[in-house]
């Protein structure tokens, strides 16, 4: 295979205007966008976001789409310590602000009701975002594909979409694990996802389940390896790894 130099196609980036912002947790916010020529998207896809400073400095980051297909573009961003883009998006952004987006991107880490299940969704921290798009898509389509969502967070305060996930609708089971601290009287899992936990939570292999695992690299490695070891065919385990800090 060869080497080539490619000039960037100027048409791929589009201007996006912040239409609304809402707080999810003390560190995460959802931003709703107005993108004039938004082509629509599939659950699991992401966009690249580009911010431009007055002096011409630009920074790009990838964020998973939180809204369902058919809904306007929404991103949920969790602030990363010292993250220059996530800090702006979660603390500065307000309606009317401008940035650029490229996408939607992704053809591997995507799900639609026609793919069936049963579905095992495993989220580490902000890895919940693309999986929430899948749950919304399922709900809007009136799909009855059985779902189990295993969601690992540091503490209850870090859980994104907590109230939405409290009543996820028929056929969806949500299992939380809180790895650093738990509220008083917590009876749920209180440790990092491991093989014994997955043995209790994951759909049995015999049902032909489909798994989507998203979060920090170490979380995705641990979960996907455990699933494959327990018999899930590798091609039925889709993975999306964020950086060590769970995004930027």
């Amino acid at each position, binding site marked *: 295979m060869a080497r080539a130099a490619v000039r960037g196609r100027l048409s791929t980036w589009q201007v996006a205007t912040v239409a609304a912002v809402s707080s999810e947790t003390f560190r995460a916010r959802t931003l709703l966008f107005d993108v004039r020529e938004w082509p629509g998207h599939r659950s699991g896809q992401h966009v690249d976001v580009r911010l*431009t*400073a007055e002096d011409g*400095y630009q920074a790009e980051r990838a964020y998973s789409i939180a809204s369902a297909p058919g809904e306007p573009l929404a991103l949920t961003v969790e602030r990363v310590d010292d993250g220059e883009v996530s800090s702006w998006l979660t603390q500065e952004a307000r309606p009317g*602000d*401008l*940035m650029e987006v490229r996408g939607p991107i992704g053809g591997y880490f995507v799900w639609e009701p026609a793919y069936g299940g049963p579905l095992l969704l495993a989220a580490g921290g902000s890895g919940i975002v693309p999986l929430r798009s899948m749950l919304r898509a399922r709900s809007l389509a009136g799909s009855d594909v059985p779902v189990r969502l295993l969601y690992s967070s540091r503490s209850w305060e870090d859980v994104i979409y907590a109230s939405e996930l409290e009543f996820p609708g028929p056929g969806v089971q949500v299992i939380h694990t809180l790895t650093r601290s738990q509220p008083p009287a917590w009876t749920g899992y209180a440790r990092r996802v491991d093989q014994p936990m997955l043995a209790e939570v994951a759909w049995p292999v015999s049902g032909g389940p489909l798994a989507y695992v998203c979060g920090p690299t170490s979380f995705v490695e641990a979960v996907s390896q455990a699933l494959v070891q327990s018999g899930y065919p590798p091609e039925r385990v889709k993975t999306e790894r964020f950086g060590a800090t769970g995004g930027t």
Partner: protein
Amino acid sequence: MSPVPRGSPVTRGFHRKRSAGSTGPAGSTGRIPPGQYLTTDFPVLSAGPTPRTALSRWTFSIAGGRSPRSWTWEEFRALPAEKLTTDIHCVTRWSKLDTAWEGVSLDVLLEGMEHDAPYALAFCDGGYTTNVPVADLLGGQAWVAFGYGGGPLGAEHGGPARLLVPHLYFWKSAKWVRGLRLLAADQPGFWENFGYNMYGDPWREQRYAGD
């Protein structure tokens, strides 16, 4: 700084997290090369997984001279070492001032070595390479560093030992270095092969080939 790229709207209130050039702390004026900004953290950049070589198997070798040399970790650590404080400049535009290192000078490692090679190619665990003229390794300009910030150099920053050539862009300060190959002709290393400058002087902003 470059003008706003054509077509990109300015994002209100967004700026790089660190201030550029002359707005650094007292004494930093003139120490930051063109196009760089000051950082106080130490970003970890890597082109691959962090190698973990047991010290019992670690060696540093110099090949290509009339008689090749090699040191085990114990032999290497028995060599005279020195402490130094220096500024470092990454081609990704961050500069960090007053970094504290400890290492063995290349003057010591190359001492008495018979060769007429003008160039060297550093090779490392994990396969990384980078090229440096031998003249830039001598005269108190380069070290094999095993200590950083008063302690042992951490694996993510290139430990147990890395090359340290602070007057060139920091990609030349090869992490996880295991030796040098002395060469008659300059040969591109890993990043040079993909379009980065063969020499890499931050003061002449030699980032890419042809700069």
